[in-house]
């Protein structure tokens, strides 16, 4: 039944993405672990966490697309949910260090010993259990999104206002997490992780597994999102995007629809953050910076919002470009990013996916007029 659904609900592009993610999840780790270093297809170990990071960003962009592309809520605070998920995972990793820290305290992380704390704060309890930490990875961002969204959507804060207060939210969290007495390591954040589930984070096998997990989870989240947006609820979300008042007048509770999208999106962002931290090896308050959240918006916009596929491509492309530029021409990167913001909003309102579609339809039209047959892509275009 699922395989049937896969074929009926998913466009060609979506199917290609899912399959290629699965293939990448197998091939890249294999190319890293099995091939000898001098082989031309060998993937060096330092690239695994980098590419894994891109996949996490892609998942974050996907989360944003769910609210922005489909529900019309431009959140400038999605970095906050990402960082919260990251912190939840980071807390688990901190607890795993155990007595191997600099101060060799069996329970307290180094920074707490440094701050002269005597015992673990209540909110650190339970994070030594993997399942609990993973629960928190989705629960904490989800809860924050629920409370925030509940207030915001109920009082009909929309559009730009909502964007600005989500930005204020992540800014407030940024300031809060910078404080030492918050109990999250202050300025330095959480770092010096040793292992996850008993496997060393430095080992190639662990890195490869984390990469594979990122790719597979991205595929899974993509499938879930695809199911959501093609369900009746998903149609309602798009209706809210286009004519909020009309949906409300037809008898739907708009705030519930928005709240659902917002919470699910925050949870996905949390998962992305949790995958990000073990691969990057550090989480600090800088992740809450409003600029990060806005950058997520541009990934989504570059790929094309409201397509689910686009944001993933956008995130991969922009971040790949960022890595290249910051290494090759560090001065130029911000110019390029800034120009990208302007160019995409001015010339590519539907992103790369929109451009692609435009080219496709033009091409189809031409071939249709030439061959005088009905276009092949017609069912999709109708959708």
């Amino acid at each position, binding site marked *: 039944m699922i395989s049937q659904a896969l074929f009926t609900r998913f466009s060609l592009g979506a199917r290609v993405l899912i399959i290629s993610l699965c293939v990448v999840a197998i091939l890249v780790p294999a190319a890293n672990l099995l091939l000898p270093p001098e082989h031309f297809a060998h993937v060096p170990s330092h690239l695994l966490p980098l590419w894994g990071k891109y996949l996490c960003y892609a998942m974050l962009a996907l989360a944003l697309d769910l609210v922005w592309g489909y529900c019309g809520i431009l959140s400038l605070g999605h970095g906050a949910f990402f960082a919260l998920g990251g912190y939840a995972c980071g807390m688990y990793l901190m607890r795993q260090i155990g007595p191997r820290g600099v101060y060799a305290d069996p329970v307290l992380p180094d920074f707490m010993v440094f701050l002269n704390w005597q015992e673990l704060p209540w909110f650190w309890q339970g994070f030594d259990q993997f399942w609990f930490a993973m629960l928190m990875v989705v629960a904490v961002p989800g809860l924050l999104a629920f409370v925030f969204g509940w207030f915001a959507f109920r009082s009909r*804060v929309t559009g730009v206002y909502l964007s600005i207060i989500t930005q204020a939210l992540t800014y*407030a969290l940024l*300031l809060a997490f910078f404080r030492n007495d918050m109990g999250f390591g202050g300025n330095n954040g959480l770092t010096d992780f040793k292992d996850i589930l008993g496997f060393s984070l430095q080992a190639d096998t662990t890195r490869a597994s984390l990469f594979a997990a990122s790719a597979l989870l991205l595929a899974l989240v993509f499938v879930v999102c695809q199911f959501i947006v093609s369900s009746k609820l998903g149609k309602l979300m798009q209706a809210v995007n286009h004519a909020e008042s009309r949906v409300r007048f037809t008898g739907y509770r708009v705030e519930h629809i928005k709240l659902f999208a917002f919470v699910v999106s925050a949870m996905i962002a949390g998962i992305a953050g949790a995958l990000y931290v073990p691969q990057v090896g550090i989480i600090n308050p800088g992740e809450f910076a409003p600029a990060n959240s806005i950058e997520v918006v541009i990934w989504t916009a570059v790929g094309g919002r409201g397509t689910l596929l686009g944001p993933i491509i956008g995130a991969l492309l922009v971040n790949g470009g960022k890595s290249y530029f910051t290494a090759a021409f560090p001065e130029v990167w911000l110019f390029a990013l800034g120009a990208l913001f302007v160019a995409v*909003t001015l010339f590519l309102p539907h992103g790369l996916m929109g451009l692609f579609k435009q080219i496709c339809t033009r091409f189809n039209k031409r071939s249709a007029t030439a061959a005088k047959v009905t276009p092949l892509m017609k069912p999709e275009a109708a959708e």
Partner: protein
Amino acid sequence: MITRLLQIAATTLWLLVALSYQTTIAAPANASTSELRQHINALATGKIKDKPRRIEALAQLGSNKAIAALNALIEGRLYSDKASTQVFMKHGDHFVDPLSLTAVNTTSKLKKVKANNKVRRIARAAIARLTLKSPNSEQRLQAVEVMFKAADHKLLPLIDEALEFEKEQEVKQKLLEIRAAITLQNKHASKEAQLEAIGQLRQMGSQQALGKLQAFINNSGASAAALKAADLAIKAIEKSQAIWGVFQNIWYGLSLGSVLLLAAIGLAITFGVMGIINMAHGEMVMLGAYTTFVVQEVIRTSFPGLFEYSLLIALPLAFLVAGAVGFAMERSIIRFLYGRPLETLLATWGVSLVLQQAIRSIFGPTNKEVGNPEWMSGAFELGGLMLTYNRLWILAFSLIVFAGILLVLNRSHFGLQMRAVTQNRRMAASMGIKTPWVDAFTFALGSGIAGIAGVALSQIANVSPNLGQSYIIDSFMVVVFGGVGNLWGTLVGAMSLGVANKFLEPYAGAVLAKILTLVVIILFIQKKPRGLFAQKGRAVEA
């Protein structure tokens, strides 16, 4: 506290200078030079137990020319020539005459005039007493301030003496206060005297008076009535200090509010009136600050005499620079995005990144130093308030800018067109108003104001490429909190956010206070999505 310490240090320094050179003190008429010299020479004679008497005798002459010699005695720089019984002061590696201060060539053997602690104490009291007779009231006041720190009951007759002659009200008041402090320290003083002293300290109401009163309660077995009075006085002083503390907080709050107002006022035009989300607004502020920097650099290298006017020169230039950038932005980007606020937000964010990086490439990533002109530095006290001139100027300046904007919007032809376009674009267009140009100039105006704000902020903030970033969220909060499209709302919003922030700070710390204000605003927007002073009517929905 620090200023007080500085004052004391300065006074001590002054005393030293005055004692060594006696440049400013004129000799009173009542002591002849020969008499003085005789008494000074007498300091070297006799046994050490005779010295207090001789010092007293010298001080009796009441000439502050004797101060130098006394000071030399305290510091062990006084030498006597056995043969001639002349006394000299050692100054560096040569000797000088204690009265004329001219260098003396002596070949004979000189002996140091001995002094013990008692002698030194007496000499100090004599110095203070002589300084109190200085004709310069400023110096007398400083001497009194120093004495307050070391109030000693032996000074009492001296103070009483000074009180008789003192005409300057301020010095007299201070002397009375010292007298009160000394009386409190004296365990044998009568109850009435104590009560009177407590009353005087209570009137004084300073931190020092508080200290003296607390010391009185802590270590004397005074009568119940006196203790009660002291307790009441302490409470009264603490209360008045708390009240001044509130005023001080309000001042700090207004000062922060004025900064917020300056940063937000341009945004109130671009966002509030035009509905454009200009994320590059902070960078306009930054451009203004860098314009100030460039102006000062040019002045420093080419016209050093103009430094005092550097800010006045920078103001119009900053307005032009930021305004021109704003104009270019509107013409090239924003005008294609009207009606798509979220896209505007992204595009202007891109512009802000480009501007930041441009400034970073040109000027480097480090902080630039922008100097304060003379008239913007320093501070003064008003009652229990400490006010700094730069904050005061910025507060005044923000209000002037605010008034100017109001005037432009409500009284000028351009303002009229602007309001017409915001209220009904199509109607305005059909009346012959060139709406695209009005849009462009309105945006340029908002940006220019941000540039002006940058000139002011360069005086109190670090001028770096990130300057704008730190203000952008606050500015949006102010505009949204005050109510979009309402300049008065921006004023009230900025001031109330500033004051609220400063009142939270003592309880929660600076960072937490900021977080709390943000949270409060977030909650407030939920409650009143259109801000404090919401625009009413149909136009709002459009």
